[in-house]
């Protein structure tokens, strides 16, 4: 087994250079797993002759923790929960975006989300994708009528057939909705009142799992219901698993939206802004919407011209108005409430 000396030297040189100051032709992005699809990144990389390095993270707290542990200039672009843009702005992490160059005029009006993405007239982030954390299920294994009422998950009929999506924010929001508490009203007292209900849900479920484990469980029939799931789970599997479906129950559901922003400390702001513009362009939006990790509705309505009819059907393109009206945004806890929520979640996992 031999490695040629030259290739060894070359690789070592490459390694050394990688740890040096960030090269001109690179963009470092802190993203969610749907941004790692080469089909999304390569057109941009080719057009601008740049390499996009991506690192995935889950949950805003984790992302902010990564930023805390990094040095200025480490990151250029960040994907962040729409409702959490404010927190990042508070910490001075985000750079101002040139609002006039962005395609927000073409967005679905409810998804511009100016109250979240702007502060004092300055745009810090732009919505790129949205969807729902609601109930996804296998329509051949469960009674779809039951799925219109969230409380049927606690009824005992589906014990051991449920997976819980492992993200405390929307899930606690959903449990709150089931109890009639609007997400905006979730405070420490309201949270504590949800504890028993959360434990009850855990007892009725088989597992608490992340994006892929949840998809797998649903697709392989390990579970029949995924609470916290939505089109983001089922659409990507729609071709091979047409028996998977989702709905927004009577109690309502959570609407997630993700925004993309440029980091204030970025050493490559111009390129970062170009990336943001690409992502929010109709083509970028269409690719992002159908990205390999999970699907979601594009914020830019013009993407509808690029998506195929089958894709739009899987995303329920035409029913968005109804869904948007009946769903609520994620809770936005302050640091203490956030920790309390995470503690409750850990307690729930350990039941």
């Amino acid at each position, binding site marked *: 087994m031999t490695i040629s000396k030259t290739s060894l030297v070359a690789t070592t040189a490459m*390694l050394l250079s990688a740890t040096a100051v960030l090269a001109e032709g690179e963009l470092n992005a802190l993203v969610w797993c749907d941004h*790692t699809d080469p089909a999304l990144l390569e057109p941009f990389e080719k057009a601008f002759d740049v390499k996009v*390095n991506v*690192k995935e993270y889950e949950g805003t707290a984790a992302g902010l923790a990564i930023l805390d542990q990094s040095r200025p200039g480490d990151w250029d672009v960040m994907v962040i929960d729409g409702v959490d843009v404010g927190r990042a702005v508070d910490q001075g992490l985000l750079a101002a975006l040139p609002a006039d160059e962005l395609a927000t005029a073409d967005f679905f009006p409810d998804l511009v989300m100016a109250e979240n993405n702007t502060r004092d007239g300055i745009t810090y982030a732009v919505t790129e994708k949205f969807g729902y954390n609601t109930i996804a299920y296998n329509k051949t294994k469960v009674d779809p009528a039951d799925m219109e009422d969230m409380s049927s998950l606690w009824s005992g009929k589906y014990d051991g057939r449920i997976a819980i999506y492992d993200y405390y924010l929307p899930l606690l929001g959903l449990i709150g909705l089931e109890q009639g508490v609007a997400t905006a009203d979730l405070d420490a007292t309201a949270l504590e009142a949800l504890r028993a209900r959360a434990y009850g849900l855990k007892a009725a479920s088989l597992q608490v799992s992340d994006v892929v484990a949840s998809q797998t469980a649903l*697709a392989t029939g390990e579970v029949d219901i995924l609470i916290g799931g939505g089109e983001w789970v089922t659409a990507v599997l729609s071709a*091979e698993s047409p028996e998977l479906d989702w709905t927004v129950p009577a109690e309502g559901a959570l609407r997630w939206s993700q925004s993309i922003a440029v980091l204030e400390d970025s050493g490559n702001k111009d390129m970062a802004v170009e990336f943001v513009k690409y992502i929010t362009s109709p083509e970028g939006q269409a690719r992002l919407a159908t990205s390999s990790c999970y699907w979601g509705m594009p914020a830019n309505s013009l993407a509808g011209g690029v998506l195929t009819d089958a894709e739009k059907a899987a995303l329920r393109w035409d029913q968005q108005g109804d869904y948007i009206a009946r769903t609520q945004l994620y809770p936005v806890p302050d640091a203490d409430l956030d920790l309390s929520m995470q503690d409750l979640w850990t307690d729930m996992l350990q039941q």
Partner: protein
Amino acid sequence: MRALSWIYIGAIFTFIFLPVVVLVLFSFQDSRLPVPPFNGPSLKWYTQVLNDRGLMEALTNSLLVALVSAAVALLLGFFAAQGLARIRLPGSVLMRGLLIAPMTVSYLIIALGLLSMFNDLGFRPSLWTTGVGHVVINVPLCFAILFASMGDHQKNAERAARDLGAGEVQVLFLVTAPMLKPALLAAYFLSVTFSWDEFIIAFLLTRFDVTLPVEIWSMLRSGLSPATNAIGSLVFLVSIAILFLLEFTVFRKPRA
């Protein structure tokens, strides 16, 4: 009794090989999910994997980190074993304990410690920091193996060489090392294996340039598909090939 033995071996081997067989089988799955039913063999996942730039880079990175960190660990372990084996030093029990200690600590803790420290010192996570971590976990292994194989037999040869006027370096590389060849090779090989397959240290201490286990973990997090089976099978088959190659060339004991 005989029959019982063979039945037992059969049963255990079935258990041991079950996941591997399933893994390889479903790497040829035609449909999207690597679960039964099995749809006719297809090579498309292997094609996808081999064309995956990220995976191939991760593979090279793993190899690089493994070979280099194992070499460093071997060197450090060899010299340490030499130092402690040839003469009774004060505090040698303590030193031995210190050198072995990392073997008893969970890799997660080693990784956390290094992450914390590198953070404070301003070093970004990279393949280098991972390499440092891998040396930490492999030095005890190399030291233990080499220390255990250094015996009087070889000490006498060294003494003879020194008596005949050989310098220190000569003794080490022309007398000691050749005599310890099996142990040296075993230590190096094991270290490469441990580093190659190591996940948690690499996971916490790399950023964009990752090793193969980390890349596979990312694959698992972003889409269930037989492609994961394919890369797993590939790694397995290549490792087996190397193993058998080594077995029949290097490790073969000369017939007494």
